[in-house]
C-alpha cells in the first residue's frame, strides 16, 4: 500500500515543506512580502513548460509505437499542465500589477505562455469531443505534432518581434536579486511542484486506465447489443 502511494506521500511532504519554507524565509529587500508570490508563480511556469513538453513527447511516442499508454501520458500531462499554466499567468499578473503598474505586458515569454495556454485548451476540447479511444488518441497525437512544429516558430517570431521593438528591460519574477535563503526556498518549491506534477499525472493515468477497463468490459457478453433495446411495438395501445 505504502509502495503504490509513495509518490503521493512524497508530493504532500515536499509541498508542505516548501510551503513552510516560503512563509518563514525573510522577505525580499525591495518588494517585501509580495515577492513570496514567486514561490508559486515560478514553479507553476516551469511546470507549464514541462507538462507541454511531456504532452508533445507522448504524442510522438504514441504515433511511433501505437501504445495507448503514451496517449494517456500525453492527455494526463495536458490536463495537469493547463491548470498550472493558468495559475502561472494569474499569479504573474498579481505580481505584475503592483510592480509594473499594469496587469499585462507584451513580454515575449508572457505571450508565448498565453499562446501555449490556448493550445492546451484546444487540445483538451478536441479530446472531450471524441468518444472512441483510438480515434481520440490518433487525432490528438497529430494535434500534438502540429504543436511541436508550430510552437518553436511562435517562440522565435515573438522573441524577434520584441527585440525589434526594444522594450525597456522588464524585471520578471524569478530574475530578481535573491539572497541564498530566498533562492533555496525557491529551489525547494520547484522540486516540490515537480513531484506534485508527477503524482497528479500518475493519478490521471491510473484513472484513464480504469476508464479503459470499463470500456473493455462493455464488450463482454453480459452487455446487450444496442439493437436489443428496440422491441416490437404494441399496436393495440397506439391509439
Amino acid at each position, binding site marked *: 500500500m505504502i509502495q503504490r502511494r509513495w509518490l503521493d506521500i512524497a508530493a504532500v511532504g515536499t509541498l508542505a515543506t516548501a510551503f513552510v519554507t516560503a512563509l518563514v524565509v525573510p522577505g525580499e529587500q525591495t518588494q517585501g512580502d509580495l515577492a513570496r508570490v514567486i514561490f508559486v508563480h515560478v514553479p507553476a511556469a516551469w511546470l507549464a513548460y514541462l507538462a507541454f513538453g511531456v504532452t508533445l513527447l507522448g504524442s510522438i511516442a504514441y*504515433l511511433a509505437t501505437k501504445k495507448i499508454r503514451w496517449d494517456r501520458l500525453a492527455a494526463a500531462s495536458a490536463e495537469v499542465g493547463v491548470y498550472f499554466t493558468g495559475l502561472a499567468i494569474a499569479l504573474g499578473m498579481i505580481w505584475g500589477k503592483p510592480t509594473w503598474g499594469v496587469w499585462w505586458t507584451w513580454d515575449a515569454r508572457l*505571450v508565448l505562455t498565453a*499562446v*501555449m495556454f*490556448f*493550445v492546451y*485548451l*484546444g487540445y483538451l*476540447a*478536441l479530446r472531450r*469531443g*471524441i468518444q*472512441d479511444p*483510438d*480515434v481520440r488518441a*490518433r*487525432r490528438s497525437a*497529430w*494535434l500534438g*505534432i*502540429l*504543436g511541436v*512544429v*508550430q510552437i518553436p*516558430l*511562435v517562440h*522565435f*517570431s*515573438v522573441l*524577434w*518581434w520584441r527585440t*525589434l521593438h526594444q522594450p525597456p528591460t522588464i524585471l520578471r519574477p524569478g530574475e530578481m536579486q535573491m539572497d541564498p535563503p530566498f533562492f533555496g526556498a525557491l529551489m525547494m518549491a520547484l522540486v516540490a511542484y515537480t513531484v506534485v506534477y508527477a503524482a497528479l499525472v500518475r493519478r490521471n493515468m491510473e484513472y484513464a486506465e480504469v476508464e479503459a477497463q470499463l470500456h473493455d468490459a462493455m464488450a463482454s457478453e453480459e452487455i446487450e447489443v444496442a439493437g436489443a433495446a428496440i422491441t416490437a411495438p404494441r399496436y393495440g395501445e397506439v391509439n
Partner: protein
Amino acid sequence: MPSFWRQAIELGRKDLRTEVRSGEVLMITVPFGAAALMLIPLAVGTDAPLLERIGPGMYWSVVLLFGVLVTVRQSAVEGQAQEDLLGLLGVDAAARFAGRAGANFLLLLLFEALLAPVALALYDTDPAGFWWLLAVIPLVAAGLSLLGTLAASIARSVASSTLVPLIVVPLAVPMLLAATQITEGLRIQATILGWLLLLVVMDLLLAVAGVLSARPLQEATR
C-alpha cells in the same frame, strides 16, 4: 486510376464549384470581414493618425480571424455519405488534403484581395512597397489554408466551426507577426527578408505536416 495531381485538382475543382454555387465566401464571409473592419474605428475612435497606424494590423487580424471561417464553411463540411463515397473511390488521402487546401487557398486569396481595398479606404493607409505585398498576400493565404485544412481534418465532426478557429488562431501567431512586420517594415524601409523567409518556412512545414498526417487522420474515423 488518375494520378495524384489529377485527383487533387479534380477534388479542388469540386470544392470550388460547390462554393461558387453556394456563394458563402463571397456573399457572407467577405461582408462579415468588411463589417468587422468597419466596427473597429467605431470602437477605438476615428482619429485619422490613429487609424492610419493601426490599419495594417487590423487588416491582417481580420484576415486571420475571419479567414479561418473560410476553411470551416458550410459547403466544405461533408456528411457521412459523401465521406463514404470518397472513401470508396479509392482516393489518396494526401490528394484529398492537397485538393481541399488548394481550393481553400484560392478562396482565401479572393478574401484577402477583396478586403484590402476596404481596409485601405477605411483606414486611409498608404500601401508602401505594394509589390512586396503582392508576395505576402499569397504566402499568408497559403499558410492559413494549410493550417485551417489540417485543423479541420483533426477536428472533423467535433464542433468544428468553433474548435477549428481555436486551434488555428494561437498557432497562426507567427504568420500574423510576419505579415504585420513586413507591412510596417516596408513603410519605414526596414529589412523584411527574414520575415518573408519565416512565412515560407512555415508554409513548407505545414504542407509537409498536412501530407504526412492525411492518411492516418483519414483512417481515424468511426
